[in-house]
């Protein structure tokens, strides 16, 4: 099949935090579009991979960026020896052949790009391709999922109300400590004690969210730090380079965070 390369063969490890799997299944059953909200590195991408695997559907991921045009999503004519050929963009591919399309970091795209998903995400479920003079009705397996980090400051970048209100939302927070330790241990290969310690350290930084930090340390950061330790780096050095330095440039906050982390270390 045409989308075989987009199929996920082995189960991506995903540790559930709440009702997200049931919510996703229900929304998929009704083919409603889904919005995954949450801070960076908390498992949104992993979750969609897991769900695609679980549903046995191909997954097409598009990372949105500022310069992305509607053609980058929908498709364009390409020139081939035999003549011009219409080439489906990733979104059209998913719509036509029935895949889950995952638009990562949707707010990065310009709003005029974002609106191409509108006819797909309401009762019409169609994708009009003006250039190609075609209206593609969505395949019955097609589903659209977007990710969205509400972030701390959203004075400028935000979704249009008419976009937002089309989606079922699933909120991703940081998992409870025990769950998060298990994730960190498994993903980084750190032992249970180290994983627990890393989560305690992350809590210190998350306490500062809104009080000097825009966001606390993500699960991803902890996994990276755990891997640095496994690669032989002493823990305090790994924590500095994996957590403190990337997360802030403010000297007071850096000092405070380093000292608070020092208080976590055995």
């Amino acid at each position, binding site marked *: 099949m045409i989308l075989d390369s987009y199929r996920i063969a082995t189960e991506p490890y995903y540790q559930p935090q709440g009702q997200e799997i049931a919510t996703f299944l229900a929304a998929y059953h009704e083919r409603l579009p889904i919005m995954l909200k949450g801070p960076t590195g908390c498992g949104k991408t992993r979750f969609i991979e897991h769900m695609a695997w679980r549903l046995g559907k191909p997954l097409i991921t598009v990372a949105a960026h500022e310069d992305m045009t509607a*053609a980058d999503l929908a498709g*364009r*004519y*390409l*020139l081939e020896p035999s*003549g*011009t050929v219409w080439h489906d963009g990733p979104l059209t591919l998913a719509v036509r052949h029935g895949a889950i399309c995952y638009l990562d970091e949707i707010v990065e795209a310009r709003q005029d790009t974002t609106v191409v998903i509108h006819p797909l995400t309401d009762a019409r479920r169609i994708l009009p391709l003006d250039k190609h003079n075609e209206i593609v009705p969505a395949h019955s397996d097609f589903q659209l999922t977007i990710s969205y980090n509400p972030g701390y*400051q*959203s*004075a*400028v*970048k*935000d979704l249009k109300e008419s976009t937002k209100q089309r989606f079922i939302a699933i909120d991703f927070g940081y998992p409870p400590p025990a769950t998060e330790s298990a994730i960190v241990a498994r993903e980084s290969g750190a032992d249970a004690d180290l994983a627990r310690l890393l989560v*305690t350290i992350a*809590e*210190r*930084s998350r*306490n*500062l969210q809104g*009080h*000097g930090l825009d966001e606390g340390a993500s699960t991803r950061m902890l996994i990276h730090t755990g891997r640095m330790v496994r690669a032989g780096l002493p823990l305090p050095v790994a924590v500095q380079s994996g957590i403190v330095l990337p997360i802030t440039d*403010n000297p*007071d*906050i850096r*000092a*405070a*965070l380093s*000292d*608070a982390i*020092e*208080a*976590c*270390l*055995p």
Partner: protein
Amino acid sequence: MSAAQLQLVSGVEGPTRTLHLWMRQRDRLRPLFTATWEILSQRFDAAEMDAWAGAVLDLANVNAGPSCLIAYWDASTSDGATEIAPLLGAARSGAEICRHAGAQAATDAFKALSAARRMLGSGAALSRWWRTMEKLATQAPESLAATAHHMAEILRPGTIAAFESFVAAGLRTAAGDRRKRLAFFSLQDELAQRMVARDPGAVTFSDVETELKAFLTALYGEVPLLRSISTDESAQTPQRRAAIAGPLIRLPEIYRGVQDDAARALFRAAAAHAQAHLALGRARFAIGQLKPLQVALVNLIEDARVETLAMRRLPGLRRLWAPYHVATPTGVATAPMLLARLARALFDPDYVDADGFVGKGRALFAAALPRLDEHAISREIGMLLGNDLGQMRVQFNAKTYVVEPLYRDDGLGLWDLGDDTTSSAETLELFIEALRPEQQESSDGPPREQDAANAAAEPGKARPAGPDERGVVIARYPEWDRVDAIERADWTTVREVAASLGDAGSIDQALEQASVLRGRVARLVRSVRLGRTVRLKRQQDGHDLDLDAMLDAGIALRSGETPDLRVFRSAKALHRDLSALLLIDTSESTRDRLASGATVLDVERLAVALLAEAMEELGDTFGLLAFSSDGRDDVRMTSIKRFSEAYDRDCRARLAGLSAGLSTRLGTALRHAGGVLGKASTSRKLLIVLTDGEPSDIDVPDPFDLIEDARRAAIGLHAQGIDAYGVVLGRAGVEAATRIFGRRNTMLVHRVEDLPARLSELYFRLARR
């Protein structure tokens, strides 16, 4: 005036009534007086208010004049004024100063009070500050104003003793020469400068406050309320310990003889200990029939309990506290020695001490470990041990006892000082006398809500100006009357006040000092100039091929048609169709000093300079306008840069010349800014308002009125197609700003110091759309 107040006025003889009657004839002063009275009535009871009214009358009786009264009211309603006694003292001293050095000197002294409070607290040290000011007023009346103006700098060494010796030195070296004195007290003199220069290794509370706050927040997940307590300089008295008062943690201004990193570590240790009590302990012990020794022991066990709890969660805290546990199992077994040894024994499992008492304490504590969550164990064990020690007949003197080790709090915050009338209440008093000397003068009970709720300064309300100082009338605007729900036409008058010129070089210098940030903004400018291009498709030439045009051309070629050869993409610098106006609040509160010694206005100035440089570089159309107000008839606008002007040295001199003063009538300022922007011909119009608090003005007692008016003005701007954004400095004004500009158009800058970075970021984000 409310009914309750009218009753007071008509019902009771005495200062309250006299003052209210006296105010009746003073139209200009009355609104502000009413507002002040209202605020204070919420803090103080009727008797206290009576005393305060008496204080105001005393000032009036020495002909202090309206400016001075207003300064005193401001000092009374400000955040630091939670107790009545220091306020009454202030009025007494103010009257004394007025008698010797005149009303202006007294006014200046009141204005310097906030700096003094910040450095010295409001206890004994502050009374000594007033006494020193009085002395100055009698012996060097001409120098009082200069001293008051430089108060923040003069108090930089951080202790009252340093201030006293500074004044003494000034009087001595000038030897009666007024010119010399004036030079000394306005810090022109070399000795004066040397005296206010700080010991380079000294670390004071204000140096570490921001960092400590973030440190505690990170540790325990709660934002602490930190304050300083003044410390006595003289080496005879023991070093003050940290103290807990309700939700507040009060740390010594300075730990004597401890410097640099060691001092920072000690502040952290003390703060982490105190916050452990608040976050994990939450004990409130009843004093009951306890003896002083038992109280000390209950404190000691409670300290060990909360520290053990804290270290279970955060084991690294042990390294923070361990260096201060230095007791050794040798020497004379006096009570303080034994207590210090027990404290160490409970903290340090490796510590060996054969003393029976210490051993028993250890055993009792170990046995209670399974119940560590209950603060009752502290009381139980403390009482038992207190009995034992009592029977050993070791001497214990509550008056001279200080808690060991150094980083621990004095323990009083753990006791319920409530209506405990049993005989042992004096036990606590003994401690209080020893530990918190200033409480003999002013009670230091749990702080009032205002203090706990909010550390930031109130928006400035300042002295009314004489008609001669007013500028040229340039516009009148309506204002919304919230109470009557109508718009009052031509209610406010805007006057153009010419900018005073400052030193443009100082702006350049400040920018140079902020070189890292400046570099970052310059990079942003470059990236915008690169990225601020329209990608032009189907061009004659360009830097790369336009894929879609190529395809079309290819198709045309193959089908035998003439291809369109415009197959390039090029990027053209985009002329931004945008004008931006920056509206700068210069009201009195921007005079407040930050930990760094800079004022809020200094930071605003740097932020504006940084952004202006970037906007000029980008070729954006922009204007800079400063505003303040002094009642509805005098809303002042000072143009720093007009749209048509280039941002040159003159503009920078005007920016440098801005000074803080008066109030914030935001709605009128917004309307005026709307008028200015309305004339711009660009399609996008952006207004950024820089303010450090909620709107206020001397003739409007209820700030809600002005908030509502400003909200309406902002809606009006929106209707005119102007995007208005509020940038708020510090938590205090955020609620008002959110109401006015809407949540998405309000940016809160928690730390004023971050403003320069945040303002430029905001502009770049807004201007990108």
